[in-house]
C-alpha cells in the first residue's frame, strides 16, 4: 500500500510500482523476449583500429549447420537506405557529414566496428559462425588521438572529407572579451583533460526485430529511451513507412544516454529480420558493450581566466577539442551545450568559446549522463586553482563570484536568466553541514601522523528543464511534452506517456502526481509506456521528465477531471463547479452521500448516456510546454583520504545540498542523485575507456573497465533546499544528471586539497592510484 503524507502522494516516498515485478524476476527485459521461430544474431567486428577491408569471405560460416544467414557490410548496404546515424540526422548540427555504410564495407574505423552479421539458430552458433567469417584487412595508420586528428596530415577516416575535422570550428564571444582580459589584474592559463569513459548500463543494447512479410509490419522489441526515436531510425534506414514500424519496450536495464534511438547494429538486425521473414534477436554482450556501444567525454580544454586580485572571476576564454570517435552520433552536438553552460551560476561578464570536433579511430561518442558536464569540471577545477593562487578559500571564491538572486534575475553571459538559482544558499548549507574549520583542524592533525585528508567543493546548475528565456521562441524551455489520459469503466486512470523509463520510476512518480490531481488512489492509476502505437512521441533523457512529464500529468489530470466532473454533473444533478473527486468518488463538495465511483461515470459515458459533448470515452490529449521551467542545481562536498604510499583514494564522507524544487518522491530523487554521484566517483577513481597508442582497445572486460562496487562508494548525506517554485503547480525539476555532473570536480578538488602539502596541482579528471603517486612525484620534482 502506498503511504500518504499530508493526504497527498506527491512529496512522499511512495513505494515503487515497479518493485514487485523486478524483485521477483518478473521484469521483462528485451533479452527475455522469445518469439516463435526466432533467430539469434552476432556480429563480426574489426580487430583493427583503422584498416581497409579487402575481402570478406562468409562461405565457411554460411556452410555451418545452424547458421541461417550471413550478411556482410556490402549485403547490408543493398538491404538498407544510405544515411547518417539516425540521431545525428534528426539533430543535425551542420558541418561536414561523413559518408559511410551501415556496417563497414570499404574500411573499418575502430576496434569493434561491425563488419558482418551472422544469424543462426542460437547465439552460440551465431558466435561459432562469426569465427568462420574470414575478413582480409590491410592496416592503415591509426588516428588514435585528437592531437593526431588535428594534424592536417593525418589519414582521413572518411573518403569524402579531406581531413578529420568533423564539427565546424567556431568561435563565439559574449561580453567584451578582449577588454576584460586587457584590464584584468591577472590572466591565468590552464590545460585541462577529461578522459574517455562510458555509460555501461548493466543491460547492454538489444533488440528483437520481427518483420511480418504478410502485413509488411515490422515489430521491434527494443531497449531504448524512446520507442518513437527507435521507430523513426529503423524506418529511415530500412526505407519503410514509419507507420509500419511498431516499437515495443518493456523493462530496460539502465542506459544513461546510451540507448537513444536505433544504433547501427539494431538497424542491421531489423534488416536481417525483413530479409529472412523471421524474428531475429541480438543481445549485446559485455565485450561488445565496452568496445563498441559508444564512449563519452574525451575532451580537452585550453582556458584563459581573467581575474582580479580580490578573486573576482571576470571572464573565461575557452578552446575546446572534442574527440568524437569514429562516427558522428552525439559528439558534434556537445560543444554547443558546453558553451552555453560554461558560465554556470557565476557572474562572469565575458566568455570567449571556440571548439573543434575531430574524428578518431575509437568508438563513437555517445550521450552519457550530463553530456555537457565538462563545463562544470573545467569551471570548478579552475576556481580551486585560482583560489590557491590568490590565497582564498575554495568556499570564499565561490561565494564571491556566485550570482546573487535578484529580481529580475541576473543573466548568464551566454544569455539565459539565472532564475531561482540557489547556488549561494547551497554553498552556505554545505559549509554548515561539514563544519569546514573543524575539518581543517582534523586535517592538520592527520597530516602530522602522515595521513592526508582533503576536502573538495563544487557547484553546478542543470537546465532541468531550464528557464523560459525572454525573447526566446514561443515554445517552452524543452519543447512540448504530450500525454494521453483516459478514465476507463473500471475506474482506472491510465496515462499514456512517451517517456521510456529505465530506472527512473516513472510508473510510480507520474501516478503520484495524477492520483493527487485527479483524486483517485495511487493504485487506481496506470502508467503505460513502451508501445509506439499507443503512446505519444517522447524521450526519456536530459532530466526532462520531472517538469515536462510531471507537468503534463498534472495538467492532463486536471483537464480530464474537468471533463469527468462535467459528465458527472448530469448524474449527480449538481453543477460541475460544486463537484469534487475524493478517493475515486465523485461527489458534491463535502457530501459523501452523493458519491458515485469515477468508473460509474465512465460506464455511463460509454453507454452513450451522457450526450455528444461528453462522448463515449473520457479521455484527453494533454500538452505542456514546461511552464516557467527553472534550474536544478546545488553544491557537493567530499572528504577524501589519500594513501600516499599506494595512491588509493577513499571517499570518507560526501554531502550534497541539492535544489530541484519540490520533490515528487524523495526516495526516487535521492536514488537519482546517489546513482549519479557514484558514476562520478567511478569516473575519477576507476573508470576509463582506454586505448593504446595504436588504437587498440584496452578495456573490453569488466576486469579492465572497473565499475565502482559497494565498497568504493560511501554513504551520502543529501539535503534538499526545495526552493520557492516559479510555477505554483509544476514546481518540481529534474535531477537525473546533476550527480554525475558535479561529483567529478568535487572529488578531484578534494584529492588536490589532500595533496596540497606536496604542492600537487591537478589538471585532469581521471586519478587512478598509479597517477596519484606520479602527481606527488612530479610535484616533488618541481
Amino acid at each position: 500500500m502506498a503511504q500518504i503524507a499530508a493526504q497527498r502522494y506527491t512529496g512522499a516516498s511512495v513505494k515503487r510500482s515497479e518493485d514487485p515485478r523486478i524483485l521477483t524476476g518478473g521484469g521483462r527485459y528485451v533479452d527475455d523476449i522469445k518469439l516463435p521461430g526466432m533467430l539469434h544474431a552476432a556480429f563480426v567486428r574489426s580487430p583493427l583500429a583503422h584498416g581497409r577491408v579487402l575481402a570478406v569471405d562468409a562461405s565457411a560460416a554460411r556452410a555451418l549447420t545452424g547458421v541461417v544467414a550471413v550478411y556482410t557490410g556490402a549485403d547490408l548496404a543493398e538491404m538498407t537506405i544510405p544515411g547518417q546515424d539516425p540521431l545525428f540526422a534528426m539533430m543535425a548540427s551542420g558541418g561536414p557529414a561523413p559518408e559511410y555504410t551501415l556496417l563497414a564495407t570499404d574500411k573499418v574505423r575502430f576496434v569493434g566496428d561491425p563488419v558482418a552479421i551472422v544469424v543462426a539458430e542460437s547465439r552460440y552458433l551465431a558466435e561459432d559462425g562469426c569465427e568462420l567469417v574470414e575478413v582480409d584487412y590491410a592496416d592503415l595508420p591509426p588516428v588514435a588521438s585528437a592531437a593526431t586528428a588535428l594534424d592536417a596530415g593525418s589519414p582521413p577516416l572518411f573518403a569524402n572529407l579531406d581531413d578529420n575535422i568533423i564539427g565546424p570550428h567556431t568561435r563565439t564571444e559574449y561580453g567584451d572579451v578582449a577588454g576584460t582580459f586587457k584590464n584584468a589584474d591577472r590572466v591565468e592559463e590552464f590545460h585541462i583533460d577529461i578522459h574517455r569513459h562510458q555509460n555501461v548500463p548493466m543491460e547492454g543494447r538489444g533488440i528483437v526485430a520481427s518483420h511480418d512479410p504478410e502485413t509488411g509490419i515490422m515489430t521491434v522489441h527494443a531497449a531504448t529511451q524512446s520507442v518513437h526515436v527507435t521507430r523513426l531510425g529503423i524506418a529511415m534506414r530500412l526505407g519503410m513507412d514509419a507507420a509500419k514500424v511498431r516499437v515495443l519496450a518493456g523493462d530496460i536495464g539502465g542506459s544513461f544516454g546510451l540507448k537513444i534511438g536505433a544504433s547501427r547494429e539494431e538497424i542491421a538486425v531489423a534488416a536481417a529480420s525483413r530479409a529472412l521473414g523471421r524474428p531475429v534477436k541480438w543481445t549485446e554482450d559485455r565485450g561488445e558493450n565496452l568496445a563498441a556501444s559508444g564512449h563519452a567525454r574525451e575532451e580537452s580544454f585550453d582556458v584563459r581566466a581573467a581575474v582580479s586580485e580580490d578573486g573576482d572571476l571576470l571572464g573565461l576564454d575557452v578552446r575546446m577539442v572534442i574527440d568524437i570517435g569514429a562516427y558522428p552520433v552525439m559528439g558534434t552536438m556537445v560543444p554547443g551545450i558546453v558553451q552555453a553552460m560554461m558560465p554556470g551560476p557565476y557572474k562572469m561578464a565575458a566568455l570567449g568559446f571556440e571548439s573543434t570536433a575531430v574524428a578518431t579511430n575509437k568508438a563513437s561518442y555517445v550521450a552519457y549522463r550530463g553530456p555537457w558536464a565538462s563545463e562544470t569540471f573545467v569551471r570548478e577545477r579552475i576556481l580551486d586553482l585560482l583560489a590557491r593562487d590568490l590565497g582564498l578559500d575554495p568556499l570564499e571564491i565561490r561565494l564571491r563570484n556566485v550570482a546573487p538572486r535578484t529580481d529580475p534575475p541576473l543573466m548568464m553571459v551566454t544569455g539565459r536568466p539565472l532564475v531561482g538559482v540557489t547556488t549561494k544558499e547551497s554553498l552556505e548549507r554545505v559549509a554548515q553541514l561539514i563544519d569546514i574549520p573543524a575539518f581543517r583542524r582534523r586535517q592538520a592533525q592527520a597530516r602530522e601522523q602522515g595521513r592526508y585528508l582533503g576536502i573538495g567543493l563544487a557547484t553546478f546548475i542543470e537546465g532541468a528543464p531550464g528557464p523560459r528565456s525572454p525573447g526566446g521562441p514561443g515554445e517552452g524551455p524543452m519543447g512540448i511534452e504530450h500525454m494521453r489520459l483516459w478514465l476507463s469503466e473500471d475506474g482506472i486512470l491510465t496515462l499514456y506517456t512517451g517517456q521510456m523509463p529505465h530506472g527512473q520510476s516513472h510508473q510510480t512518480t507520474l501516478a503520484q502526481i495524477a492520483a493527487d490531481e485527479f483524486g483517485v488512489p495511487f493504485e487506481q492509476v496506470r502508467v503505460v509506456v513502451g508501445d509506439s502505437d499507443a503512446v505519444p512521441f517522447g524521450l526519456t533523457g536530459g532530466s526532462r521528465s520531472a517538469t515536462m512529464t510531471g507537468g503534463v500529468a498534472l495538467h492532463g489530470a486536471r483537464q480530464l477531471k474537468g471533463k469527468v466532473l462535467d459528465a458527472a454533473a448530469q448524474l449527480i444533478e449538481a453543477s460541475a463547479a460544486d463537484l469534487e473527486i475524493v478517493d475515486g468518488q465523485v461527489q458534491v463538495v463535502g457530501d459523501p452521500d452523493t458519491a458515485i465511483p469515477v468508473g460509474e461515470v465512465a460506464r455511463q459515458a460509454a453507454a452513450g448516456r451522457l450526450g455528444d459533448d461528453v462522448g463515449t470515452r473520457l479521455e484527453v490529449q494533454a500538452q505542456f510546454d514546461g511552464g516557467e521551467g527553472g534550474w536544478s542545481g546545488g553544491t557537493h562536498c567530499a572528504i577524501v583520504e589519500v594513501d600516499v604510499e599506494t595512491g588509493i583514494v577513499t571517499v570518507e564522507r560526501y554531502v550534497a545540498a541539492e535544489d530541484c524544487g519540490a520533490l515528487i518522491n524523495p526516495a526516487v530523487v535521492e536514488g537519482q542523485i546517489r546513482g549519479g554521484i557514484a558514476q562520478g566517483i567511478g569516473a575519477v577513481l576507476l573508470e576509463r575507456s582506454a586505448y593504446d597508442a595504436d588504437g587498440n582497445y584496452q578495456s573490453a572486460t569488466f576486469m579492465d573497465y572497473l565499475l565502482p562496487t559497494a565498497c568504493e562508494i560511501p554513504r551520502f548525506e543529501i539535503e534538499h533546499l526545495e526552493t520557492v517554485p516559479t510555477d505554483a503547480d509544476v514546481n518540481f525539476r529534474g535531477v537525473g544528471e546533476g550527480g554525475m555532473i558535479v561529483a567529478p570536480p568535487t572529488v578531484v578538488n578534494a584529492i588536490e586539497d589532500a595533496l596540497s602539502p606536496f604542492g600537487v596541482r591537478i589538471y585532469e579528471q581521471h586519478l587512478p592510484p598509479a597517477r596519484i603517486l606520479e602527481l606527488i612525484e612530479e610535484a616533488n620534482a618541481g
Partner: protein
Amino acid sequence: MKLPSVEYEAPATVAEAVGLLAEHQDEASVLAGGQSLIPLLALRLARPAVLVDINGVAELSGISQANGSQANGSQANGSLAIGATTREYMAEESAQVAQAVPLLAAALPLIGHEAIRNRGTIGGSLAHADPAAELPAVARALDAEFVVRSAAETRVIAAADWFEGYLATARRPDELLTEVRFPMAPPGTGAAFEEVARRHGDFAIVGLAAQLTLNDGVISDARLAFSGVADVPVRARDAEDLLKGQRPSSELFAEAARAATAAIDPPADLHGSSEYRKKVAAALVRRGLKAATGNAQGTGNAHERQHS
C-alpha cells in the same frame, strides 16, 4: 560471449581422470571450480577439445593433516594436505587451516568474492597459476608441495619449481594436481596477506604474503612472496635473510622493503606502471611485516588489508 563447442567428461575417480588426460593430453583442460577457466572459454581465449570435469572425484576434496616424518625442510612441522578440489570457502571456514596455516587463512578471504570462493578450488587456483592471484604467493612463501598424478606415477613438486611462467606450471598435460601440502606454522608465527587492488575483491595490483616466526622476540623465520610483480609469484629471499636473527622494528622493515624490491622488475599494465608496482610492493612489505609481527605477538588483525 558464448563458450565454444567442447567435449565433456566427468570422471568419478582420479584413475579415470588421469586416464582421460593420458588420452587427450594437451587437448584437454581440467575443469575444477571453473572460476578462471570458464571466463577464458567464454572469451574464446581457451580452446580445449575436451573438458575433464573433476568436481565429481570425491577423493580430491578434503583437508587432512600429514605428519612431519616423511617431509623434508619446510615440512618438518608436518603439513596440511588440501585436496585439489577443496573449495576455497571450505578452506576459509576450516578451523584447521586457520590454526595450522595462518597465512593461507589470511589470503583466502581476499580471493574474489563469496560467490567465487563457493565454486573456486584451492587446486584450481594453483594449477591456473595466475601470478596476480593470492594462493600462488602463499604457496611460494610457504614452500608448499604439489602432488601430481599421472597414469604412470605420482610426483611431488616443490613450489619453487611449480610456477614456470604466466599461467604455466610444471604439471605435464597427462598429470592431475591432486593435493597441495602446506607446511604448518611453528609456534610464534604471525602471518598477513597485504594487497592493493583497484576495488574490493579484484585481483591485486600487487600483493604480499608475509609470515614471521618470533623466538624470544627475535625473528627466527621470515617468508615473503609477492603476487603481481612478475609472471610467477616472487619470493623475496634477500629480505628474508636480512630479517632473520633481528628484532622487529620499523627501521628493519623499511630496510627489508628496500631489499625485497631492489631485485624486482614488475610488468606494467592498465592498472599500474612498473615503477608504481615497485613503490606499492615496498609499502606492502613494511605493512605486511608490521601486521605479521602483530599477529605473531597476538596483537594484530590477521585480516588487515590495504583497500577495503
